[in-house]
């Protein structure tokens, strides 16, 4: 194993993890609400791709419909799980989003199937590529490229457009931004739509990795997003990205260094390391926007 191999692994896994975390933080940053149904947005993207794949349309149609449906599901989450209870406690929203996630999973179970369904992907995903002597699946490079593009796009959106500035303001102080005429509902729906967009992209990349979709497919990305967000600092976008890469580094290192017998416990080791990080920095690695409010 060379260090280049390691670097590529970390970068590609980190890219995926960073995107997962970002999709979660967008909603959390503005609403201070954790969306437990986020994993199910990925599931919706995956199942849409599965359903469309049967129609014989080109792959790109399949991918785009997946992303669109994930965005729709994201906005639906706002209406079903968040708006009815938004003014109540934070706990209420956590539970409703958890309930909504159960709802979606059971819907998939009922209406499609509990068994894994294969999602065909373009041949490029499984091809391998050689760089400086290291052989790596093309999808790793695709993941890195997609992450770079999306992160740049997203950063530009937030920095330079009025909508982006409004979103950052809403994340700091929603009521004040409303007093300036920023429509709160629009901002929130946009946040959910962006979150769904990220989820849709992730479903493509994730299924590229595992090849099939099951009702529980969203659990692992959800967990990754959770942990990356917590170690990165709950309200900071850069923190989410950093957290994603850090987590990828931990996972990859453990993958390479754990003896075979302990490999299946990798998640337990990762979690222990995360706990240690949190012991050292409970607020996460990067401080979020100052707001003076209890997180």
């Amino acid at each position: 194993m060379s260090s280049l191999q390691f670097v590529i692994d970390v970068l590609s896994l980190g890219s995926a993890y960073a995107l997962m975390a970002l999709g979660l933080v967008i909603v959390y940053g503005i609403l201070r609400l954790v969306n437990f149904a986020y994993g199910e947005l990925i599931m919706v993207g995956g199942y849409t791709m599965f359903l469309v794949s049967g129609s014989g349309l080109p792959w790109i149609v399949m991918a785009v419909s997946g992303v669109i449906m994930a965005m729709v599901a994201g906005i639906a989450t706002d209406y079903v799980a968040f708006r009815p209870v938004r003014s109540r406690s934070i706990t209420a929203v956590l539970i409703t989003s958890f309930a909504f996630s159960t709802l979606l999973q059971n819907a998939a179970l009922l209406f499609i199937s509990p068994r894994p369904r294969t999602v065909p992907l373009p041949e490029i995903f499984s091809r391998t590529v050689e760089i400086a002597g290291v052989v790596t699946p093309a999808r790793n490079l695709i993941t890195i490229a997609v992450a770079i593009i999306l992160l740049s796009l997203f950063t530009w959106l937030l920095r330079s457009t009025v909508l982006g500035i409004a979103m950052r303001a809403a994340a700091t102080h929603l009521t004040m931004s409303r007093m300036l005429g920023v429509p709160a509902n629009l901002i929130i729906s946009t946040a959910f739509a962006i979150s769904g967009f990220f989820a849709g992209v992730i479903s493509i990349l994730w299924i590229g990795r595992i090849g099939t979709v099951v009702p529980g497919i969203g659990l692992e990305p959800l967990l990754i997003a959770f942990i990356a967000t917590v170690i990165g600092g709950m309200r900071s976008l850069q923190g989410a990205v950093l957290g994603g890469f850090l987590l990828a580094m931990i996972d990859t290192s453990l993958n390479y260094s754990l003896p075979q017998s302990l490999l299946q416990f990798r998640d337990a080791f990762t979690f222990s390391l995360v706990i240690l990080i949190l012991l050292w920095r409970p607020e996460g690695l990067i401080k979020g926007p100052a707001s003076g409010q209890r997180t």
Partner: protein
Amino acid sequence: MLEVDDLEVRYGAVRAVRSVSIKVANGELVTLLGANGAGKSSTLMAIAGAVSTFSGRVRLGGAKVTGATPERMARLGVATVPETRNVFPDLTVAENLRLGAFLRRRDAAGVAADRDAFFDWFPILAERADQPAGTLSGGEQQMLVIARAMMSRPRMLLLDEPSLGLAPLVVDEIFRMIEGLKAAGVTILLVEQNARKGLAVADRAYVMRLGRIEVEGSAREVAATAELQSLYLGGAA
């Protein structure tokens, strides 16, 4: 322009504002005075839509706006500056101002012109244009949020305790700014604890105590009221 009738605001069981009636005519500067806890801020926030009205009516330019959302009030031309100031600390000064003109965002040229006008009026803001607003001093932040509110070219400005927490010299500067706005014809409803400053700049004034209006009249009349002292020292919570 603004008519408030019999306003009542409650926080749970607590009646913070009770049957308060206020009028602000076009171009006037009206001050709402009172000690801490008198209900002045609650009145203002209820008008602004940030806090819910229990009962009563609020009319803007004749149209009913009771219980309107903050977004709607902003769209109707009412700009609010809460007492907590609420600069967006991670946004730069320029971004704060740009957001103030959110409702005029299609008129990029006009917005830029206004922004430059404010930069001329307050060179300190120009100096700090690209700094995060959170790094500004209290007085600079107050200037920023008033300028930000004006960026939307509102027909009415609601100002909640602009002098709060500021040193006397800075307070003077802020009130010079307010006078300048008044001279430019902006209608202003000002809430102030600093009675002297509040009356000096006002056309008319109301004094609140324990949620009610106790005294009203022209600024001069109110200033002369002997009860003013007792209202401040003897009265509210």
